[in-house]
């Protein structure tokens, strides 16, 4: 890819990132932070790519550590976010629940 193509993708992604969270309600600040945190665990894909062709033992060990850390970020991030949101649906304040249409609770 040319540098300009990458720059274009970067700028457009930044705008999308700003737009998608611009209307977040304050009760969801922590779960959103946690969910976004899980998403950057995708560095796992980069860690796998560089570890795949590591030939020296030092690089292989470094790669194993990077993959381990990235997996903790990615997997743990999504699981803990799900737990936060699970509590959410159970312990919602009455007034907030009243604003939601019937049947929006998870089954």
């Amino acid at each position, binding site marked *: *890819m040319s*540098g300009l193509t990458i720059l274009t*993708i*970067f700028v457009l*992604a930044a705008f*999308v*990132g*700003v737009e*998608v969270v611009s209307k*977040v*309600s304050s009760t969801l600040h*922590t*779960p*959103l*932070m*946690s*969910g*976004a*945190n*899980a*998403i*950057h665990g*995708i*560095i*796992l894909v*980069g*860690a796998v790519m*560089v*570890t*795949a*062709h*590591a030939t020296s033992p030092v*690089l*292989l060990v*470094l*790669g*194993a*550590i*990077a*993959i381990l*850390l990235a*997996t*903790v*970020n*990615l*997997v*743990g*991030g*999504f*699981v*803990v*976010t*799900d737990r*936060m949101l*699970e509590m*959410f*649906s159970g312990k919602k304040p009455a007034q907030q629940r009243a604003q*939601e249409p019937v049947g*929006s609770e*998870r089954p």
Partner: protein
Amino acid sequence: MNVLPSPVTELAYLAAAVCFILALKGLSSPRSARRGNLLGAAGAAVAVVTVLLSTDFEGANLAVVLGSVGVGSAVAVPAARRVKMTEMPQLVAIFNGVGGGAAAIVGIMELAEFAGHDVKLVVAGTTAFAVFVGATSLLGSLLTFGKLQGTITSRPIVLPGAGVLLVAALGAGLGAAVAVTLTADVWFGVVLALLGLAFGALLVLPVGGADVPIVISLLNAFTGLAVAASGWAMGSTLLLVAGTLVGASGTILTLAMATAMGRSVNGILFGALKGGSTAG
């Protein structure tokens, strides 16, 4: 194993990127939040399976990769399942820190691979950014964990000359980043990582306990940008898009959290250094 044709790989990564966008969108509204998070996890699963099926692995490297993923999952899932509700923010801080650490290590491994090759300035430069910011996020996040957990005092810790030290660490980091950009040398990269760790510590120590969640959100955005820089350097659109999404949305979220608490990000980070109050 490299069994996927290249267009299929690219399309799978595109699908994962779309999942991440929809995940953030879903997480912004109470009704769709849980679905959004699951969609994000699905996107991540697609991306990980895709990279395993589209990469050539040297020797026994595939076994090392799968083993590390297995151990990482075995550590993370019970931790995330068992953590007490009140201790979730600290756990998120740790997850964020290790993600930053992973980005920094990936950057250093890339520099090691560059040895003896002609490397474009922009590739070495974005790698340098990933190393420094990833390391900043690693130690910064671990210290926020300590502050929330009570391992270290939650009151602002202001070292003598903290302001000067902070500026010095950033300046030295910039110098090392320029050196990495020009030479793509791995040892400059290691120095850069150490300076990143120092900068992270100096940035977080003066923050007061009540402001810590906002700083975790800021470091979350930092890690996102480090991942985006890795994607830039490696030519991976998925990492570039996912990291940029988190960097941008994390910045907006940090500002929103600060506003909701009636604080300014500037005051949170540098208030104690100026001798102002960071109480509260």
